[in-house]
């Protein structure tokens, strides 16, 4: 009798191993499984918060995020074929150029940002720096300032654009070259958020960052005029005057990036492994009361509602997202 009882227990346990993995097929349309999101480093803090809220709402879903310079993350999808469901870029043009049409079909612009000069109270000349003399201070010998790698991160080439625009706006010829001369290569990091830890440990005095990152990490920052901070789309005609050369697809090839206001883009990757859950996350993110509110509270102004560039793209969007976007150029 005892033996049969034991046998029955074993059969029951083994059958659980067979039945439970099959249950997702039976469970119904609730989103579940893994969702892999590649996103810009500057979106790390808001996306971490969104991940928590979304996973609380849909406990069967596991959001797996990987952050890095947007150019690098897009290349990982397009060149290395790394599996991802969603890509959120700090520069929507990266999605247009690297992912559409092979890896993505549409692009939604969902947030803006602007560049600021970050520092801490331990930085050199922290007490005298202001919006009028920052470019003099960055030129001084012994001041360690840096930005992220323009070849891997939009924040990198945007930082260089800010400097070029500053030269034109303040009418100081040669300012850009003098500033770059005071920025040795060791002050460049692949991801802009790495600069935050360098600032906080006192290894760097000044770093170019997005306003949202400065707010999220409690850094001191200098707000710059709209003409140079890449934050106001009405100034696009002036921003266009800045040009930065970044590496192309092969070593030795180059692409020219032109200045434009910081516009973040997001898309779903073609042949995603979990389109239902990915769509559910996008529906949450693009909701003015959901993800967009999280962005706003964390210092990053969203587009409410989000924008797509043509009516055709709007019709191509998945059902739950269509209503959240408007067509605007």
């Amino acid at each position, binding site marked *: 009798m005892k033996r049969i009882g034991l046998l029955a227990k074993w059969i029951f346990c083994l059958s659980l191993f067979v039945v439970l993995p099959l249950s997702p097929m039976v469970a119904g349309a609730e989103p579940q499984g893994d969702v892999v999101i590649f996103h810009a480093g500057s979106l790390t803090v808001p996306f971490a918060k969104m991940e928590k809220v979304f996973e609380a709402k849909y406990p069967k879903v596991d959001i797996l995020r990987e952050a890095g310079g947007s150019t690098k993350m897009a290349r990982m999808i397009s060149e290395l074929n790394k599996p991802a469901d969603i890509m959120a870029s700090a520069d929507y043009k990266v999605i247009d150029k690297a992912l559409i049409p092979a890896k993505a079909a549409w692009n939604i612009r969902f947030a803006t940002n602007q560049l600021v000069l970050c520092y801490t109270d331990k930085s050199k000349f922290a007490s005298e720096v202001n919006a009028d003399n920052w470019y003099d201070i960055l030129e001084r010998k012994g001041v360690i300032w840096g930005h992220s790698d323009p070849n*891997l991160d939009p924040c990198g080439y945007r930082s260089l654009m800010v400097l070029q625009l500053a030269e034109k706006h303040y009418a100081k010829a040669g300012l850009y070259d003098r500033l770059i001369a005071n920025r040795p290569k*060791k002050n460049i990091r*692949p991801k802009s958020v790495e600069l935050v830890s360098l600032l906080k440990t006192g290894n760097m005095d000044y770093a170019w960052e997005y306003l949202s990152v400065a707010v999220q990490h409690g850094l001191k920052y200098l707000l710059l005029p709209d003409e140079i901070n890449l934050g106001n789309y009405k100034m696009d005609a002036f921003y266009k005057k800045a040009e930065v050369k970044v590496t192309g697809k092969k070593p030795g090839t180059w692409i020219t990036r032109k200045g434009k206001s910081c516009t973040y883009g997001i898309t779903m990757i073609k042949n995603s492994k979990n389109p239902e859950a990915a769509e559910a996350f996008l529906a949450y993110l693009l909701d003015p009361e959901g993800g967009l509110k999280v962005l706003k509270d964390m210092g990053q102004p969203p587009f409410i509602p989000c924008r797509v560039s043509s009516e055709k793209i709007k019709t191509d969007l998945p059902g739950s997202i269509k209503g959240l976007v408007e067509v605007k150029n």
Partner: protein
Amino acid sequence: MNPFFSARGYYKENKLNVYGMKKKIGKDPWFFITLFCSVTVVTFILFPLIEMVTQPSLQDLKDTAGDTDVLRSIWLSIYTSGLAAVISFIIGTPFAYLLARKNFFGKKVVESIIDLPIMIPHPVVGIAILGLAGKNHWLGQFMQSIGIHIMGTVTGIVTVLTFVGLPFYVNTVKTGFEAIPVRLENVSRSLGASMSGTFLRVTFPLAWRSMLVGMIMCCARAISEFGAVVIVAYHPMIAPVMIYERFTAYGLRYSQPVAVWLIFVCLALFILLRIVSPVKEKSGD
């Protein structure tokens, strides 16, 4: 007893070797287990490496060999890990000697401390060293005031590489010292030589081979370090950082050749070092 009995004939007839053991071991399961495991281990190590070495085309390899950035980063890797090995030799040898010869209270704890850099995750090492070196720490302030900069400098890279390579040197050399009988040193001391004299003239000549092997181990560990160095110094780029940067920026095709050249250069160096250190004859003690 048969006067024509010969031991040699007996051994030959029964297929025994000189120790009286059965020569033919073909059917013994241990033989097959050994053979199987040996082949598996060697294949496990060689297969991915052979794949990687044969994947790039000869043209890609040639182009990469001509790229000055690549050459510079490989050279930087070699000489920073060489420096780390030399520093380990200088400060690690007396410490290893102490561990080999003396038993003191808490010795086991100290030996575990020496093993810590091996088990700490590499980015943690980089973060820890960077935290010490910044202006927000008294040590960082002191170092910066005397002109020592860690972030993004060769000094920083060598510091990190020494940190991760030191345990390998100390453990190897400690074992080497332990293999030298204390008697020899005692004899030297009893004949009037000082501690320093004994070390230089008795211990060192017997232990230099294990020191060389220790330096090779330390150098090998240091050359492959990535996680800690990329935090402390992205530029100047050592070879592993360049391989990773090329992988993320351009893809496998442009990073593999750099990896192949690094492997070849390191292999050549280590084979050379092993050739230079002759095989130790059995000490017969």
